[in-house]
């Protein structure tokens, strides 16, 4: 047995953004921290890689909104090179040659709504106010450890009281509405506001991203909120591009970690978390090397953590059962495309600013639901919902001058089609997506120089996300707040002593927030009786 000379205070497994966030706050507190990463590059799902000479892809996650500004500020990520540029428009192409654009300018946005429905233009004000109200409520809890509602410990009681207090700051009628909101489907929720088919489809799309749910599935309304609760410099709901791609987020975090004395080892895959006498002692790498540490933090998803890198005999049987049944369904694919120039879109007038933001091609709720039907039958959607962005329009570091990089998020893509994935099937899936875009952009296909096509198979194999689920577990209420990942384990502590979880499987979930990593660091520092280096939430009021 090889034994490393190094004896770490903490080993964090996985150099994704949450692992790095967690490690950085622990290193900032003076702990001797090592992050081990199976890949040769850091970042996990927030990586940017050059797979085609001169083009940089954000291979997995592609836009940034939910990343907590408090973490950005506390780890000084701006000085470590991070810049998030807001992008504030989105659009949906219609099959009849028209389109709906949600423009960055509020006057133009309103007029565009009026172009489709006078009533919806006015209803949008009520919709915005309601969504903003729920965002304000939810944001209170992002950088806090969820209380255990069954516990009588003073801290749990206090946190639970805080939660209820914030909840009761809503008026009585809004409390009812909020509970309804949490249990509704996005389609039904939006029908309380809008009548226009395209507008309904446009605002529904964000609710199915990353989920094994359809627009008519209960619980999807919350996913809309999960995507809307971020902001860029106070523009609530706005998304942004990290300059240099999402790898800039993990790059800045890694730089901050190293500035605080933390270490990162790539090409170091963990085979097992070592446990002795119900206490972690370190990790064993697939190379056979063992590294010892007082504390082990897993940034892997809960299912992978407890069913693959821990011995079931070290774990409570009920937890193993929970982990096996953890809802973590792969449903998304991704294309990253190097383009020889800027594609034109037939229905957009020349100079339209709408290419600068999110572009979608699914203009009815029926088409969205049918895309989901395909997935339920283990097929990729023949008419998928795509979230298309061309960030090289803003960011000169992604492609050579005049050339462009397109990122395409695709919903839905099955974990395994009938007979399993093959490279050929993967390329057929990619072709389906390319064909859809080409329906609206005649020169698109001719501009393609290279495409990286990722199905759940590639996402799982490369990043280690079980089934390729981008959130490390569905964002449904049975797996949120004090139920995330499992009841009784929502406070980042694992079932054996000195073992913690810091990934998106924990509260508040996925979306490149960094909040799980920071929250887990706070709990670890509390257990070690070290001063807290993690930030408190900024307050809006």
């Amino acid at each position, binding site marked *: 047995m090889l034994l490393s000379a190094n004896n770490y205070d903490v080993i964090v497994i996985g150099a994704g953004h949450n692992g790095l966030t967690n490690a950085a706050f622990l290193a900032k507190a003076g702990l001797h921290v090592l992050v081990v990463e199976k890949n040769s590059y850091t970042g996990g799902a927030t990586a940017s890689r050059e797979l085609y000479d001169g083009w940089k892809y954000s291979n997995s996650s592609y836009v940034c909104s939910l990343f907590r500004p408090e973490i950005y500020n506390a780890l000084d990520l701006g000085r470590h090179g991070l810049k998030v540029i807001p992008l504030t428009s989105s659009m949906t192409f219609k099959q009849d040659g028209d389109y709906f654009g949600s423009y960055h300018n509020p006057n133009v946005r309103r007029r565009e709504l009026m172009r489709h429905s006078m009533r919806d*233009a006015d209803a949008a004000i009520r919709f915005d106010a309601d969504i903003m109200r729920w965002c304000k409520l939810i944001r209170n809890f992002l950088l806090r450890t969820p209380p255990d509602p069954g516990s009588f410990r003073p801290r749990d009681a206090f946190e639970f009281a805080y939660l209820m207090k914030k909840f009761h700051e809503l*008026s009585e009628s809004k409390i009812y509405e909020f509970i309804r909101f949490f249990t509704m489907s996005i389609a039904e929720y939006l029908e309380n506001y809008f009548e226009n088919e395209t507008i309904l489809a446009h605002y529904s799309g964000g609710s199915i991203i990353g989920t094994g749910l359809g627009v008519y599935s209960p619980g999807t309304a919350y996913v809309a909120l999960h995507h809307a609760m971020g902001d860029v410099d106070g523009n609530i709901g706005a998304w942004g591009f990290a300059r240099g791609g999402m790898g800039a987020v993990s790059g800045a975090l890694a730089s901050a970690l190293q500035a605080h004395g933390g270490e990162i080892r790539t090409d170091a895959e963990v085979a097992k978390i070592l446990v002795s006498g119900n206490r972690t002692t370190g990790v064993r790498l697939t190379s056979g090397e063992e590294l010892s540490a007082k504390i082990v933090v897993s940034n892997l998803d809960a299912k992978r953590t407890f069913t693959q890198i821990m011995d079931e005999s070290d774990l409570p049987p009920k937890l193993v059962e929970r982990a096996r049944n953890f809802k973590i369904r792969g449903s998304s694919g991704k294309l990253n495309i190097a383009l020889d120039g800027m594609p034109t879109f037939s229905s957009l007038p020349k100079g339209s600013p709408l290419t600068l933001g999110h572009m979608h091609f699914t203009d009815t709720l029926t088409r969205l639901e049918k895309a989901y039907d395909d997935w339920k039958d283990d097929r990729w959607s023949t008419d998928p919902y795509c979230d298309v962005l061309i960030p090289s329009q803003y960011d000169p570091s992604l492609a050579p001058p005049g050339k462009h990089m397109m990122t395409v998020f695709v919903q839905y893509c099955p974990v395994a089609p009938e007979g399993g994935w093959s490279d050929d099937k993967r390329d057929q899936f990619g072709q389906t997506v390319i064909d859809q875009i080409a329906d609206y952009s005649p020169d698109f296909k001719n501009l393609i120089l290279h495409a990286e096509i990722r199905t759940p198979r590639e996402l799982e194999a490369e990043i280690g996300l079980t089934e390729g689920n981008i959130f490390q577990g569905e964002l449904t209420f049975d797996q949120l707040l004090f139920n995330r990942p499992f009841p009784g384990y929502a406070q980042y502590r694992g079932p054996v002593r000195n073992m913690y979880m810091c990934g998106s499987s924990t509260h508040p979930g996925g979306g490149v927030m960094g909040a799980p990593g920071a929250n887990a660091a706070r709990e670890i520092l509390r257990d070690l009786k070290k001063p807290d280096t993690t930030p408190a939430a900024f307050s809006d009021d």
Partner: protein
Amino acid sequence: MNIGHEHFRRALQHTPFHDRIAALSATEDWTGWNGYKVARVVDKLSTEYFAVRSGCAVMDLTPMEKYRITGNGAREYLDRLVTRNISKLRPGRVTYVIWCNDEGKVIDDGTLFQLGEYDYRLCAQHHQLDWLLMSATGFDVHIETETHDVAALAVQGPTSCSVLTAAGFDKLDQLKPFGIVDLQCKGIPVTVSRTGFTGDLGYELWVKPEDALNLWDAVFDVRGLYDIHAMGLDALEMVRIEAGFIMPGFDFNTAESTIRNGHDRSPFEVGLGWVVNLDKGHFTGRKALLAENSRPARRRLTKIVIDGNKPVREAFLYDRKNGEQVGEVKCATWSPVLKANLALADIDCVNGKLPPKLWARLDYQRELKWHTAWAECHVQSKPFYNPEHRSATPPPRF
């Protein structure tokens, strides 16, 4: 309204009067109002202000939201919508109304024009189509937005009647306050109402957008006889505060766009109890307002005069110098006719009553240096400025 695909190229659209106002604009001081480009100041603020108070000022009102409400059930519908008893409203008359949500919080205010037996126009401060249609369930009523299909021009000031008469509007001097009449001016059909937001004598002219420029020219043609000035929003802000008119969305948060609990306001809290008729029968928000009416007032949007001459923008109010904070100024202006600082302030009540003393803490700059001054405030119940000629029929001739 026909909106093309290219509308994004101009974030703020031009009103039908825009060409004429742009030609007069020396300041190029524009702002947005409901998606239109409108003047803050056309030429000189004091000139525009005194045109309202001494001569005649003309202002483009087209961006104001206008809804046409028609149908056999229109009266019933409106009676249910608004808090005021409108049973005395007749064709050819206008009344001021507000409407509330179920919680009795003010959604907006506006002027309700009865144009025919089953034909109404509701002018509102904010976008209301969603609420108006939601409220229409069960009523035989048709509602549509006509904001962009009707051009509106305010002609305000002591000489406004004489100006319009000279421009070709016949028998205008017989029109009473809040009256409406259909007239012709040089062949242009114009609906004229004796209404306005200035607290002075004044009229509002309603025409088809294609007639807008001809109407403008007809009015400005009498410039040789009378001094007439185009006016921007800044002067309007001064005169509306002098008149004691409130603006939902500026002086208080409108109910349906409120995010924070308690940041919306009831009619009683904004001094609009006088347009709430709890005994008129059921209307939206009545139950909540009945309950509120039986409790002591919690706060009140109040007209105050602030002593001294220090400029007032945002300011906190206190119960004494350096005392407890009891309120805040929502809007304020220096009144050139009254030589006084006027303001509307949101003030907390104690046992239903305003504090006996009020002091404002004013932070102001002199040559870029900040100073603080304390000024005593005096509550006013009447409009700050309300000249007799405003409501005289016929108005004084010039």
